[in-house]
């Protein structure tokens, strides 16, 4: 760039600023439609957790998948490849992102002491310790090893477990093994209801 061109450019710049200051700048080019918000987002396949149709989902989260980003899901839509829902989702499924990101999601273990009217945050370590203590005390006191006829029954009736029918099979197996190893019989799932 020679000096002359430089001056020209400056002059042009000054003129443009002056014009724009007067509000006479030509309007911007037509804004294109809103940027497609999923470009580059990480896509993960999942299934809807609500009813038993088992619709396929595509979940989109920010971040490349690289180690330094914390993925947060910002959009969920139906998986068009899924042979049952073929992309469709009902009103519940279409709003799943607000379930994942609900302001009422629990974040930390909490404890409510007898008679107390408030929650206290506790660590997982303390939670496991305290719960296991309560369970063991109850089990040791109340496990029925033999029934009146002398048959080994090894059942623990004073603690029960109501299990979810929303969790995956794998958690279900862990729960089943956990519960039966302790001798729990009063196990139910919301499957009934």
């Amino acid at each position, binding site marked *: 760039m020679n000096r002359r061109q430089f001056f020209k450019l400056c002059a042009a710049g000054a003129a443009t600023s002056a014009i724009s200051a007067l509000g006479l700048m030509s309007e911007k*080019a*037509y804004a294109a*439609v809103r940027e*497609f*918000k999923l470009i580059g987002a990480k896509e993960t396949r999942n299934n809807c957790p609500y009813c038993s149709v088992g619709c396929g989902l595509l979940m989109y989260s920010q971040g490349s998948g690289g180690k330094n980003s914390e993925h947060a899901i910002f959009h969920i*839509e*139906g998986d068009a490849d899924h042979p049952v829902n073929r992309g469709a989702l009902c*009103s519940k499924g*279409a709003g799943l992102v607000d379930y994942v990101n609900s302001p009422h999601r629990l974040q930390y273990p909490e404890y409510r002491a007898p008679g107390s009217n408030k929650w206290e945050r506790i660590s997982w370590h303390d939670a496991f310790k305290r719960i296991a203590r309560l369970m063991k005390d109850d089990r040791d006191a109340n496990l029925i090893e033999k029934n009146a006829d002398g048959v080994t029954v090894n059942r623990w009736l004073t603690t029960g477990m109501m299990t979810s029918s929303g969790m995956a099979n794998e958690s279900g197996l862990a729960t089943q093994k956990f519960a039966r190893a302790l001798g729990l019989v009063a196990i139910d799932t919301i499957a009934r209801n």
Partner: protein
Amino acid sequence: MATQDIIQRSGTSQATPPAQARVGGVKQIAKLFDATKCNGCKACQVACSEWNDLREEVGSFQGTYQNPASLSPECWTLMKYNEIEDQGKLRWQFTHSACMHCADPACLKACSTSGAIVQHANGTVDFDSDKCIGCGYCASACPFDIPKISAVDNKAYKCTMCSDRLAVGLEPSCVKSCTTGALRFGTREDMLFSAEKRVNELKERGFAKAGLYNPEGVGGTGMLMILHDVTQPETYEMPKDPQIPLSVTLWQDWVKPLGTVGLLATAAVACLHKITVGRNIVEEDQPGYQPPEDKAQAEEEAKK
């Protein structure tokens, strides 16, 4: 970046058409809402809000399944519910209420701002919110009562037909989500074809008045509707014969040109008058003016 596929643009005349070089291969698209296949599940409504990142306030029960109570700047698609008795048989009728994407959009015609409302070559009518000034002309012009002005940012909002999805080759979010196939999406040609087929099917199934709602008054719509009884669209809360309102036509097609002529004529007459008649001055007030008696006196003195 210009889309270069805009066929109508608010606030411009035919003398200054928008950039539309890239319309050659573009097909008109349409969304087909088949009320006879809808069960009012609201998937479309929620999918719309989800995709477009809209969250209306949580309302309250108003004696109907319809929630929110109406379309709003944060609700661009709304299911409406009506209980109709037809020949002694109860029918629960649902309306997918959203922008109709008229071929001849009253909103665009009424818009006060260049390019704030555009019509793409594929037929969708889209609002450019950065340009929108919130005059609300579109809201009052729309025969379907669709655009809503936000009290927060004073801009008009409505269904964009998910123009951002269309731009990358996807279908609108509502259509993708529809559980029963009551919403379909495709080229206008295909949609008209399948609508005709479906209407015939319905007639065979006993819906003698079934038909396609594609009102001519607005040049046809980008959302086509199959109704059980097309003779009574009011029962779906749809206008019977939607038109560009007379007020808009009168205003844009008559008042504007006549007004312009009037203004120019006034100015012209004024100029002409000025040129022909000239100044209208009070001579006495002019500098160097001598009243006649002074003048006569002066002349007399000169004679002396």
